[in-house]
């Protein structure tokens, strides 16, 4: 298949055959980032055992790279310790996919954020105090106005 709109082979593999698609009724942690107005909304569900991500599922509305990054982050995080998984960055996900087109690096690469939100949700449920991450400037799409400034 042609490498459409500059996607790597790996992006297309994950897009065409995404891993860990689905929801979890009994998730220990749930993270949701993005905004359908902007064209991307990702949800990640995790099951935690002994501080490790035992199982993970995702649901994503969005473009090719939104789906591919969701699939990739789910594969990366599966079996990982929570503190390690918190360290996965957007760039790590993009690197694992052999890169993303520059225009997709912002709003279609939210999967790591969704994972972090799911882990924080798990910790909050356990009663832990969760520090808010500093978000890189100009990366958020959480707004209600008519268009995205950055995505």
């Amino acid at each position: 298949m042609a490498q459409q709109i500059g996607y790597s082979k790996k992006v297309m593999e994950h897009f065409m055959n995404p891993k860990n698609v689905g929801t979890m009724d009994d998730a220990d942690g749930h993270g949701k980032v993005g905004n359908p107005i902007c064209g991307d909304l990702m949800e990640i569900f995790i099951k935690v055992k002994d501080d490790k991500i035992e199982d993970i599922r995702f649901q994503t509305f969005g473009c090719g790279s939104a789906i591919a990054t969701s699939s990739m982050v789910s594969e990366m995080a599966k079996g990982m310790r929570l503190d390690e998984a918190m360290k996965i960055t957007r760039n790590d996900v993009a690197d694992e996919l052999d890169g993303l087109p520059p225009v997709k690096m912002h709003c279609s690469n939210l999967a790591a954020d969704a994972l972090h939100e799911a882990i924080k949700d798990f910790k909050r449920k356990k009663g832990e105090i969760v520090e808010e991450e500093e978000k890189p400037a100009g990366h958020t799409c959480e707004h209600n106005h008519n268009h995205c400034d950055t995505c």
Partner: protein
Amino acid sequence: MERIFLDHASVTPVDARALRFAEPYLAGGYGNPSSLHSVGLEARRAIEDARTKVAALINAEKEKTILFTSGATEANNLAIKGAALRNVGKGKKVVSSAIEHMSVLNPMKDLQKNEFEFTTVPVDSSGIVDLEKLEDSATRETTVTSIMYANNEIGTIEPIREISEIVHEKGVYLHVDATAAAGRIPIDVQADGIDLLTLSSNDMYGPQGAGALYVKTGVRIQPVLPGGGQERGLRSGTENIFAIAGMGEAARIAREEMGTESARLSEMRNSLIEEILKIEETYLTGHPTKRLPHHASFRFSHIEGESILLIMDAQGIQVSTGSACSSKTLEPSHVLLAIGLKHEEAHGSMVMTLGRSNTVEQVPRVVDAVNEMVVKLRKISSLGKE
């Protein structure tokens, strides 16, 4: 796997007959049409032949009303800026519909930066121009109103004759971008009351690099490319003879075959629409009946257009979308927003435009692929699960 190309609104492949006709002008050592010697004369004849054929396609009153340009973008710029600047004595107001192509909207915005007043006329949910608002927009100071013959993204055909009557009451020039419509439905500039009309070679199976602007006899515009005075002084620059000759032949073929070809494609289009609308939460965009014969456009809830395009392409079927993720500006299509769709709805659009390579036998495979694509993406999607 046989490729099924359903994106003829982006480009039409050059018709083999048009290519054969024009090829000698690319390879054969032709002259400069401005030269007075015999080689130059041959080139001149090729251009005049193309002018006759293009004039016939739109029933222009005279051949010399046709000016050749480099394409539709240049023709739109010439029509709008040329008419606005030439007639600035009348006033500095210009008007277009909200769903025009960027090559109409951006010259309008350029004028706006130079103290022209630019009004956009809204459309209804099917894409038809609001005629009352159009009437309000036409004043004694308005010089040019630009309304497309039919829209490339939603296929809606505008009521050009009514529009013409409305704007002409105030002495406004009517410019019509017929890029999407030409060669698909009959256009008669005289009966329709059109002052300026844009045509594109590569949207009617001609080569890239040529377009045309019809300028009705007596309509006054000025050039945007002044120079050596080609094309009656309104479009200078040595003519692209190959592309112009090819465009002429493509116009001849389109005129001859339009009746049968449009009937064939509309039959295929109708079955595509009928079958695809059976999918839950799927909607037609654009007008149900006043639409181009080769045009089927949809939106699907809960899924996104770039993903739609990629999955269809993996099935060997090329479509297009007005989703933000596939645009250069990362904004959803202004056309889909103008017909009242929310951003999240506009993201899920899919456009199929049929052409000469398509056959009705392809319908079942296309319909199956669309069904599979929707099921697959909705299963992945975080929307629509409640």
